[in-house]
């Protein structure tokens, strides 16, 4: 009796801790939704209340879409993140295949360099890359947003680790069947690595959809702005920031990511169970 009692007490404590953690994580989002639903007067009122007295979500959304071309910015975000991801996969898969399955002199050294590359923060190379793009004349374009991220060392590392688990026999069977080395990458390794590609896709898309730093330095033109820049545009030091529409815009740009993530997460779990079969 006392034992079950102590166990339940533990369980309660555990849940309280987890809920507290979740609350801390969720608070900014809840606050965002709350603010997005409040009219301007309630946002600046001194009392704190979560549920607005008068719901103004629709008005805020309308203002947000009126003040900025949000759809265009969302489209920019989609173009940039998808291009980055596709190019990253096109580079990472053959590279990972070579590092995992081919034997050549200097392979371990190359892999060590890849690992070393993971340690370098993107900010460290920002200025050289910026200057390079300037010299080439690509600043303020989609290319400036996409090109610096096409080689993802993290992607190469992740895919290489996954490819290591693909049996060598499968690669040999493909060679016996007459599939070329590049053919093996796309016809054999890619289908086998769908879970890993999905996982990498989640990392990549989230990182570049939310990236604020790089678009901020390479972009000038308004029509190229990515979603985070668009939100920042609502901050206005002179006229005062209009928080209602800002939060509404933030909601809009987060929505695709949340939806995509939920969808990909399910695929992701499916993918992991798929690899259980031989």
């Amino acid at each position, binding site marked *: 009796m006392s034992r079950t009692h102590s166990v339940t007490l533990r369980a309660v404590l555990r849940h309280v801790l987890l809920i507290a953690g979740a609350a801390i994580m969720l608070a900014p989002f809840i606050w965002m939704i709350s603010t997005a639903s409040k009219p301007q007067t309630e946002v600046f009122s001194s009392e704190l209340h979560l549920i607005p007295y008068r719901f103004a979500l629709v008005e805020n959304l309308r203002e947000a879409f009126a003040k900025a071309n949000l759809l265009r910015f969302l489209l920019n975000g989609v173009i940039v993140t998808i291009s980055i991801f596709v190019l990253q996969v096109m580079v990472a898969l053959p590279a990972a295949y070579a590092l995992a399955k081919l034997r050549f002199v200097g392979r371990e050294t190359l892999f060590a360099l890849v690992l070393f590359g993971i340690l370098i923060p993107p900010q460290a190379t920002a200025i050289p890359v910026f200057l390079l793009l300037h010299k080439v004349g690509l600043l303020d374009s989609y290319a400036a947003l996409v090109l610096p991220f096409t080689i993802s060392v993290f992607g190469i590392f992740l895919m290489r680790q996954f490819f290591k688990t693909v*049996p060598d*026999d*499968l690669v*040999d*069977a*493909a*060679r*016996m*069947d*007459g*599939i070329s080395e590049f053919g093996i990458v796309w016809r*054999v390794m890619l*289908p*086998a690595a*769908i879970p890993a590609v999905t996982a990498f896709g989640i990392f990549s898309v989230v990182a570049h959809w939310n990236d604020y730093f790089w678009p901020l330095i390479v972009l000038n033109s308004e029509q190229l702005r990515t979603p985070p820049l668009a939100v920042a545009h609502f901050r206005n030091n002179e006229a005062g920031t209009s928080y209602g529409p800002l939060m509404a815009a933030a909601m809009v740009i987060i929505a695709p990511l949340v939806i995509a993530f939920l969808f990909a997460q399910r695929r992701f779990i499916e993918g992991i169970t798929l690899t259980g*079969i*031989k």
Partner: protein
Amino acid sequence: MAQIELSAIRKSFDGTDVLKGIDFRIEDGEFISLVGPSGCGKSTLLRIIAGLEPQNSGEVRIDGRPVDAIRPSARNLAMVFQSYALYPHLSTFDNIAVPLRMRRLSAIERLPLLGPLLPGRRVKERAIRADITAIAEQLDIAPLLRRKPGQLSGGQRQRVAVGRAMVREPRAFLFDEPLSNLDAKLRVHMRAELAELHRRLEATFVYVTHDQAEAMTMSSRIAVMMGGELIQAGTPAQIYNDPSDIRVAEFIGSPKINILPGRIRNDGGIDVLGTALRLACKATAGDCRVGVRPERIELGAGPFSGSVVHLENLGAEAFVHLAIEGTALRLIARLADVRHLPAMGSALAFGFPPDAVRVFDPAGKRIELRAEQAERIREPAHV
């Protein structure tokens, strides 16, 4: 369909010699088994034949033509792997179709979206479908064509892998321990099926296994490999009855051949455990080892004696483990009649006929027994 010749094949990985000069000739239509303990280089040799692994030196010739510079697929050999190596994302049908599509369709026709629209592809696909259906009928896998490998049992996957090999009508089939992932019962069944397949196709089969039972039951010839060398090649009966090396004698046969310490006297006579055998040889005097198969040990009478320390009754036969008197040696005898088993711990006399004896020198090489001497010894028995 193909004759495969290997000459002076050498291979080393990171400084260790895996193959130390293999010379071998596989005849057209033969079922040849490469057997040996793990690490003897048999799989490496098979991969060299397939072209998946380049040799350091030596030459592989198929039908008299060197193939060393030719890619695996262009050698037109088919391989069945231990793990079957079916493409997990493709159905059985598509798995079997891969080698045909790679050979018959052009690169453009193979493109995922555009390919199926091309007119030529449709005709070729129809031919491929007909070929696969024929193979599936032969192998009894027609109902499985739509399933993915994950939904198949081990034996079914094995058949699909064989189907993928057969469909391309290769010059020779290479098998890399294809039965070792199956359970014992299925393995015995597949053994018969593969042997039958070989008879039907009349193709060259090169079969790698560490299981001497598989090699003995299926092959027309066995090549025994040890430590990167090919020690002996011959028919299963030759390998079993006439091993040229003590390692071959010990590897082939279950339970293992009994090895007893012996001595060659100055006059060429052979002593085992202090008893003179009625045999002689030309070898120089010194130590030797004497091998006798368990089924050739005769219990109940003979110059030696031991006590029963263990009995294994398998129903159809029984194995009697004897501790030889006055030594730490153990010996196994096969009893065909299980109704009269000796009691545990009982003392038994035993012996063996002279023609059951195989003598090996200290280096493990077989010593030929002198024929006329053996003949003379048998004489009293005839009278």
